[in-house]
């Protein structure tokens, strides 16, 4: 089932195909490829067929549904009532969600069909999916390489036609980096644009849900449905959503695109450097004006993020204590029970981040680390504000390399570096996306691997951002030049 989400919805609404036909085709594809790929932790064949039947009944009753019959991969940190929701962790391995996340519910109400719960780095902490405690996901473009992370399962599923839309969550790059690695469009809206109700929290001031798709048009379609105020999430923003899917453009005339001086690509090697130079030139050819902008804090992004996110995670993950849900490991008193449950339930990366966060928040270190990072965060916001006085969008790499081989990043810091380009936008809450921009040949490999161009806009500039990305995508058509041969 290689149809786009837009085309599936059109056909199902027009009665040319039933949602059930589309669903059966996608479930068959999952059965063929997913034993090799491992995109899904839970396949939802029964639920998908029932959901598709309901969509068909609504269509027959005369409804028009924006996502009629569109198969969706749901990242496994989003609750879907009655289905296992694990966060890729032993802590929640058998946990069944009792309610449905708002963003998921909105897609399903709009006619989307959930086909599986997708693998992820444990509690969304990671950039390769290797931190999942429950399974390995492979990159559809080269099975020996990672799909990126943390939304790696959603990305692999969409790239290998096991879904048309993937739901991801992005805290420091977890939608954009796997999108880049799997030749997809991955879109993180402005912080607060999409409700986080039912998204199991990692770092609450940064977490944001967004779509992964095989085209900008599909991502815009899904975004329009999931965005908007939700009374169940008090941080969701009460501000009208400017529809994006109907505002896509085919040129960039009048758009000023900022190139961040500190994000120079020379250090990424000649092949990658020339790829991004070409991407910037392509933006110019479409009518954009390129302007140099500065982001003096750029090199402090990782340090800032790796204090704030762990601090918030150490607080959020305190709820996993073996009392009310999830894993429990017995101990002779309640303290030992907590300590053993958390020792056994959490993997190394989660423990590492909880420990960093606990330390940064502990008495005597709070001001020096946590508050300092929050002040640095203010500087990111101010830097971007200044930059956006001179430009409408900012263009940069989405990741500093293509998908790497399994076990290639063994020390935590080299893995954290993968998010160098995406973290600054997260700290400032900006909407940002990755769109395919070509391929490079990794050393010693004969398989060209996709790369992503990151575009970012000022707060709430989603519609303009998607419009511009569509113009770039339609003019370059990079994603169509290679197929995910590894998986097919």
């Amino acid at each position: 089932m290689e149809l786009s989400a837009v085309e599936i919805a059109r056909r199902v609404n027009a009665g040319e195909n039933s949602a059930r036909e589309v669903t059966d085709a996608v479930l068959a594809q999952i059965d063929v490829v997913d034993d090799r790929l491992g995109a899904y932790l839970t396949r939802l064949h029964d639920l998908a067929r029932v959901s598709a039947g309901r969509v068909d009944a609504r269509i027959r009753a005369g409804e028009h549904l924006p996502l009629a019959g569109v198969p969706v991969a749901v990242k496994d940190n989003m609750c879907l009532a009655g289905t296992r929701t694990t966060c890729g962790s032993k802590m929640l391995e058998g946990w069944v969600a009792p309610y449905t996340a708002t963003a998921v519910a909105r897609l399903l109400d709009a006619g989307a069909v959930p086909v599986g719960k997708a693998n992820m780095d444990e509690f969304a902490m990671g950039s390769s999916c290797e931190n999942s405690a429950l399974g390995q996901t492979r990159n559809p473009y080269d099975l020996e390489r990672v799909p990126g992370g943390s939304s790696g399962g959603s990305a692999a599923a969409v790239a290998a036609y096991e879904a048309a839309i993937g739901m991801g969550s992005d805290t420091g790059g977890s939608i954009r980096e796997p999108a880049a690695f799997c030749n997809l469009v991955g879109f993180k809206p402005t912080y607060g644009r999409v409700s986080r109700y039912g998204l199991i929290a990692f770092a609450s001031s940064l977490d944001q849900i967004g779509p992964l798709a095989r085209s900008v048009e599909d991502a815009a379609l899904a975004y329009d449905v999931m965005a908007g105020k939700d009374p169940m999430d008090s941080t969701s923003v009460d501000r009208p959503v400017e529809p994006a899917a109907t505002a896509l453009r085919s040129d960039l005339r009048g758009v000023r695109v900022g190139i961040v001086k500190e994000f120079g690509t020379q250090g990424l090697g000649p092949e990658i450097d020339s790829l991004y130079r070409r991407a910037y030139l392509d933006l110019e050819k479409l009518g954009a004006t390129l302007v140099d902008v500065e982001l003096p804090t750029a090199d402090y992004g990782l340090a800032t993020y790796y204090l704030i996110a762990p601090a918030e995670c150490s607080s959020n993950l305190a709820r996993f204590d073996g009392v009310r849900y999830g894993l429990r490991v017995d101990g002779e008193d309640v303290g030992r029970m907590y300590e053993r449950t958390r020792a056994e339930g959490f993997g190394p990366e989660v423990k590492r981040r909880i420990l960093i966060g606990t330390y940064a928040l502990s008495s005597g270190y709070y001001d020096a680390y946590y508050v300092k990072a929050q002040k640095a965060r203010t500087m990111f916001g101010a830097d971007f504000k200044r930059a956006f006085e001179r430009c409408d969008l900012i263009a940069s790499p989405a990741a500093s390399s293509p998908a790497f081989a399994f076990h290639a990043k063994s020390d935590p810091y080299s893995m954290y570096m993968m998010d160098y380009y995406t973290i600054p936008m997260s700290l400032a809450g900006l909407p940002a996306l990755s769109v395919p921009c070509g391929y490079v040949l990794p050393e010693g490999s004969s398989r060209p691997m996709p790369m992503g161009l990151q575009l970012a806009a000022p707060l709430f500039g989603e519609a303009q951002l998607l419009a511009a990305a569509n113009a770039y995508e339609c003019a370059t058509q990079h994603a169509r030049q290679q197929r995910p041969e590894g998986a097919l």
Partner: protein
Amino acid sequence: MSSDNIDIRYVAKLARIELTDDEVERFGRQLADLLEHAKTLHELDTAAVPATAQVVESRNVARADAVGRCLEHETVMQMAPQRQGAFFRVPRIISEES
């Protein structure tokens, strides 16, 4: 501020995670490295900069104090690893002597 002498066992105690000796050694080393990197933030002059906790402006909103929809009690209890009737069952908290 020195991060060379992080008492990793104390931090783990605060975080309620039992660590093996191997983890104490490994996480201790990795934490020291990460905090060393975090210290680069001290190069930034933030004397006049306020802290940011939330990027999108939010304000306090009042709503009617009315009971809304929520999970059934039994639905919640069924998720419990151990229960006793309507309660979550946990190991002893207060010792007999106290």
